[in-house]
């Protein structure tokens, strides 16, 4: 069972035993309410230097309000997994929160290019699938998983993957290290006060992300009664005992969409794109993050009820989500 080749990338090293100890010592097994404000959730559960994982942010069901709170609280030296994301990384880098990015796919522009050139941010190469798969490994509690891609490419060379001789088939196969983030941010459609959570629609990897991470913050469009959760146990995708914080965040995915509930605010997405192209991310962040004290205040003072009503009204597809 030979190691044929190894990538040279820096990666968050898997340590399943340390992860187990953390879970044992910190998770609440009883049914206790975890409902708290976004401020408290981010303050208590996101530390400077943390590896932060999330999905598909600013497009579909992303933890956008939690990310803005991270920026508002000026968290520093975060490491993120940018898989299948829009300009989240740009916002976080512009705000000075992030200095390491594992790349699957992210919208990139001058903010990140300049930060990379200045040495303010380091990029590490993976792919969307490889990052989702590393999170799967983390959620299985194992230190690595084999996979049948990455090999042969520069992504492999810049990653933490290894090419080995498979002891079962004798053929070459890649291994990738499990990813066990310090904290996961997951936006869900519904959960109860304990954290039993429902997610409606096609997804990237919210369940793997949730279960792979040491700390887990949920933001939710709706807090529903626990009895209602228990009437449809098959809909519960994340169990309460994994959850550290439940943040009630209607429109928490804004400016992205929560399918079945509200459309993405394309106008806003354009505004942020233009801001980054024109080098005006500071103004953008001031307007949307720093000049308001909370997500709720942003919705009221920056978006406005009329726009929110429109985004809801225009999402006419409910089928499969809410009916």
């Amino acid at each position: 069972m030979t190691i044929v080749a190894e990538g040279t990338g820096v990666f968050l090293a898997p340590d399943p035993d340390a992860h187990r100890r953390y879970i044992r010592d910190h998770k609440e097994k009883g049914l206790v309410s975890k409902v708290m404000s976004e401020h408290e959730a981010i303050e208590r559960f996101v530390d400077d230097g943390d590896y932060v994982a999330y999905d598909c942010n600013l497009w579909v069901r992303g933890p956008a309000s939690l990310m803005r709170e991270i920026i508002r609280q000026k968290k520093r030296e975060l490491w993120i997994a940018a898989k299948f994301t829009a300009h989240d990384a740009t916002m976080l880098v512009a705000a000075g929160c992030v200095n390491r990015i594992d790349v699957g796919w992210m919208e990139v522009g001058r903010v990140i290019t300049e930060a990379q050139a200045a040495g303010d941010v380091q990029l590490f190469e993976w792919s969307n699938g490889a990052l989702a798969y590393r999170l799967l490994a983390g959620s299985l509690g194992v230190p690595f998983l084999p996979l049948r891609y990455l090999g042969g490419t520069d992504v492999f060379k810049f990653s933490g993957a290894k090419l080995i001789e498979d002891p079962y088939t004798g053929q070459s196969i890649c291994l990738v290290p499990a990813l066990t983030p310090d904290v996961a941010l997951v936006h869900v459609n519904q959960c109860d006060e304990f954290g039993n959570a429902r997610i409606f629609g096609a997804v990237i990897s919210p369940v793997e992300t949730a279960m792979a991470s040491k700390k887990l913050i949920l933001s939710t469009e709706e807090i529903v009664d626990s009895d209602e959760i228990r009437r449809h146990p098959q809909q519960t995708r994340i169990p309460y005992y994994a959850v550290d914080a439940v943040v009630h965040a209607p429109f928490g995915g804004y400016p992205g969409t929560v399918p079945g509930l509200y459309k993405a605010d394309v106008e806003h997405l354009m505004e942020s794109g233009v801001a980054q192209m024109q080098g005006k991310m500071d103004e953008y962040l001031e307007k949307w993050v720093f000049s308001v004290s909370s997500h709720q205040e942003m919705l009221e003072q920056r978006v406005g009820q009329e726009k929110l009503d429109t985004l809801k009204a225009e999402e006419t597809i409910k089928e499969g989500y809410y009916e």
Partner: protein
Amino acid sequence: MTETRTFTDMEQIICTSSRLMNGDKLYFTAIGGPPLVAVLLAKRLHAPALAYIVEDGTIAPQVSLPAPPFLIAASGASYRAASWTDMNTVSFHAGLGYIDYGVLAAVQVDQYGNFNSTFVGPAYERPARRFGGPGGANEIASLCWRTILMTRQQGRKFVKKLDFMSSPGYLDGSPSARERAGLPPDTGPWRVVTETAVFDFDEGTRKIRLQALAPWATVDDVVAEMEFEPLVAPTLENIDVPSEEELAVLRAEVDPTGRTIRGRWITVELEGDSARLVEQEAPAEGA
């Protein structure tokens, strides 16, 4: 009877690609851009039964046209799917051999069909231009049986050496190179589609080979827009220019906002099977 037709380079790429698709095959497409538009066009026009999966876990959706704007963040993109799963699940289906074709866009392609979607420029830390990363392209190009690549016919896109190999073609072209790298056998790039050409790959050498040509372009035109000399098939097939029906559907139904199909304008004069170039815009910088 002559007729004048005007279309963008990207419309040609999309129409040519979509004609390569069949209703009894399963496709894995990037979640947006030209690959998805080509699939939607094929499904709308000649292969309504065509099924495709998307990285976000959507299996065989039935997008109702006209497509909603910003499809990547719209519930319309996964409407009436056979199943809503997740990113890992659809990758597993590809890994198990269920997916016939991957459909992808590339920033740079080399002679073995390896491609780049990470950065261009002299050095990794100081890219001239940084792109989003491979996204799902690495797994799609590794695990699907065949890959269709879409790119523009430009010298800076068909390069001798990639600035970064984000996703695998035939790697160094040696026999079993992909297998030695841990990828499943009998997979690899199948066609590379540009506005003037379709390339396949020589079975023996695994090198890219010009296989079809737009009627308004010559082999020299194509080769002039490549950093290396491709193989050329003994007989070149003819690429039809976008039909009026294709263009109408593309513009009105598949990409009504025009975000994907825009590009440099090409005008040709058609006479029977032949077409004569009347005018074409110069390529935009960075397109």
